[in-house]
């Protein structure tokens, strides 16, 4: 892909912020990104805003507060991948030659509790066929059955990410937990306990993209959805067939993004991946090619995915520490990786990181994989 650079990043912390609006959080993140790029909102040619619950013209409200209207302002919804979808559109608008400098941001202020989604028909909700944690749990069950992994391994993922999150001032949870605490926390849907599931919350993230120049290079980005057939697909179909030969969307997106970047899993120095639940991260490792199918136990045993390990995964603490504001989470990963690749990630810095990968997947069956190069 052509030379698209990230010249500024900004974040509003992820958490719960009372009456603070999504617009206000967006303004904070966007101003920080614009400031890093040395520009104002009046200097960008287009804006793309990822949000799932932001409502009509959510992105416009942010630009309006910054006197940045007049340009196209496009809201993008793709479930948990909304920010990734916005980033792909923003990058493509530069690669196409139409624009030289665009703003991409994500904002979210989510209701508490199990996420209610207009995705499901009312009868499916009434029949009890809509709870997201149950589908996460079924996917986790499958992973355990097919790989021999155990609930202990799921707990180890939570321990790792929560330990990383202690060093992230922008995370919602900054207290380390033990495997015993994870396993003893409230059982939500077996095998997933409360601590194994991320919390929906609030936050914002922003990046400025420019044609060429200096800054971290956006070397590859791909958004893909599920091929038909997998009953456990994030589009929650009610039936499915034998899916053993059907590539999941994360694998499809990773293949595209690696090809665009001319890089592969062996070239990566740091990864931020979707850990909606602990099993989702373990699945992503194999889908992204970070380890062979069933190789997760060895990665955990060797500490390969820990800060200081061979290939640290979720040095930010992941969604398990940060929580998941849908529209902002993907761009939050990108902000983290840009800081890692600049060498400015403080106590959670991955030494010498040059190549990073971000991964999200969620409702709408969308997976987005982004490859960044210092």
């Amino acid at each position, binding site marked *: 892909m052509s030379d698209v650079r990230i010249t500024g990043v900004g974040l509003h912390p992820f958490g719960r912020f009372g009456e603070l609006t999504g617009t206000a959080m967006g303004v904070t993140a966007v101003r920080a990104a614009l400031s890093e790029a040395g520009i104002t909102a009046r200097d960008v040619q287009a804006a793309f805003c990822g949000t799932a619950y932001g409502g009509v013209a959510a992105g416009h409200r942010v630009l309006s507060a910054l006197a940045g209207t007049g340009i196209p302002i496009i809201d993008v919804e793709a479930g948990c991948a909304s920010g990734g979808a916005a980033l792909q559109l923003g990058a493509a608008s530069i690669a196409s030659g139409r624009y030289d400098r665009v703003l991409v941001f994500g904002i979210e202020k989510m209701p508490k509790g199990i996420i209610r989604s207009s995705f499901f028909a009312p009868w499916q909700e009434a029949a009890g066929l*809509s709870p997201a944690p149950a589908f996460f749990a079924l996917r986790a069950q499958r992973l355990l059955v097919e790989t021999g992994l155990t609930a202990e391994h799921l707990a180890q993922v939570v321990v790792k990410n929560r330990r990383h999150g202690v060093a992230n001032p922008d995370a919602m949870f900054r207290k380390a937990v033990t495997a015993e605490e994870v396993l003893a926390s409230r059982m939500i849907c077996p095998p997933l306990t409360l601590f194994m599931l991320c919390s929906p919350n609030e936050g914002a993230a922003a990046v400025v993209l420019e044609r060429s120049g200096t800054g971290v290079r956006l070397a590859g980005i791909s958004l893909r959805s599920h091929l*038909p057939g997998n*009953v456990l697909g994030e589009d929650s179909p009610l039936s499915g067939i034998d899916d053993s030969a059907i590539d999941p969307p994360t694998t499809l997106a990773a293949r595209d993004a690696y090809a665009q970047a001319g890089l592969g899993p062996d070239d990566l120095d740091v990864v931020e991946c979707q850990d909606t639940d602990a099993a989702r991260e373990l699945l992503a490792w194999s889908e992204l090619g970070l380890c062979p199918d069933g190789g997760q136990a060895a990665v955990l045993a060797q500490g390969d995915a820990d800060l200081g390990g061979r290939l640290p995964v979720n040095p930010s603490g992941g969604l398990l520490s940060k929580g998941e504001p849908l529209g902002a989470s993907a761009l939050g990963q990108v902000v983290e990786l840009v800081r890692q690749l600049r060498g400015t990630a403080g106590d959670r810095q991955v030494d010498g990181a040059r190549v990073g990968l971000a991964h999200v997947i969620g409702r709408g069956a969308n997976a987005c994989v982004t490859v960044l190069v210092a």
Partner: protein
Amino acid sequence: MSPRPIDPSVLRLDDDGVTLLGGWSPSSGLRHFPASPVCPFTGADDIEPVDLPRTGTVWLHTTVTLAPPGYLGPVPYGLGIVELDGDPMLRVVSRLSGDGLARGAPVHLEGEELPGPDEEPSVTWVFRT
């Protein structure tokens, strides 16, 4: 008032009890549920309605402990995926009930009364051991 299905396009109630209404594509040879305009797995545009088997085995199962939004029935309840009898294999998302729920356990189809979207009684499907 006689029992009514929670959605008449996905199940039928009659003297045989509950029947799941699927679709079948002769050209792809695949069944699916609920019936779709085209084969949801291949896109084949030759769908015929088909009553799905009432028996199968448990593939995956979990328990829902917190009532999800829009659900007014009891908790906890079982939720999982059943591999219906017949070839080629079809996996169906279902409520699950009964003793001895485990991978590979044989299950059969029954009706279960729950408040519908309008809070009035309605019948959905459950696979029971």
